[in-house]
């Protein structure tokens, strides 16, 4: 399941909803991204996440399906917020559930790395010196590139 929304989310409620009734699940991995109060040494008052409605949802659904092909997942969820968020607020939630922990961990990391490099979101930070668009980080591309050819075979080892 994927959701793109302005609203806050509740990690515990989402884990409970995703796993309820499926007793094949043995391990659940989650990632929560949170707005930090500094970036590049400068204080951030808030950030605004712009996105590409339509393409965002389509791409999230695609990558979630891809994770399900690569790893034996029982359930997964991606929630990505947009709009204005202040330091300490939750931005993104990824949950992956599998019979065993390794598949859950790997699929979760895969999805987070992918979100950083391919999900059509752009962050505008509010700083004391004015607003500025966050630039993409090359290390995120490196992180995403490591997943080429990874997945079900490796997790099944």
């Amino acid at each position, binding site marked *: 399941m994927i959701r793109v929304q302005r609203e806050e989310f509740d990690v515990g409620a989402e884990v409970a909803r995703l796993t309820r009734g499926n007793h094949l699940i043995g391990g659940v991995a989650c990632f929560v*991204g949170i707005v930090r109060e500094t970036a590049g040494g400068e204080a951030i008052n808030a950030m605004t*996440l*712009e*996105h*590409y409605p*339509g*393409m965002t949802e*389509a*791409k999230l659904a695609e990558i979630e399906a891809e994770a399900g092909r690569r790893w034996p997942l029982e359930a997964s969820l991606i929630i*990505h917020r947009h709009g204005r968020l202040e330091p300490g607020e939750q*931005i*993104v939630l990824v949950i992956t559930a599998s019979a065993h922990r390794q598949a859950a961990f790997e699929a979760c990391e895969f999805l*987070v790395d992918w*979100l*950083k*490099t*391919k*999900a*059509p*979101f*752009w*962050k*505008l930070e509010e700083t004391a010196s004015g607003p500025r*668009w*966050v*630039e*993409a980080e090359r290390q*995120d591309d490196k992180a995403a590139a490591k997943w080429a050819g990874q997945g079900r075979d490796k997790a099944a080892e």
Partner: protein
Amino acid sequence: MKILYFAWLKAKTGAGEEEVNPPDHVTDVQGLIDWLKERSPGHAQALADLSAIRVAVNQNYAGLDHPVKAGDEIALFPPVTGG
């Protein structure tokens, strides 16, 4: 043809979205961007550095040689920074 701009491309071009009818010789993304640059100084500035721009054609990532045609939705934006 619908053009969408995101992040700083939106501010520089002065438009989030515009309907355009490029001439027949515009057949791919590269040709479209060259033609869009002529629309205003803001467009020229926004589209000056192709290495800073990513493209989606009908909501899929596309290269500069990807074909474009009437009815397409073309989005131009900087590298994404989600997650």
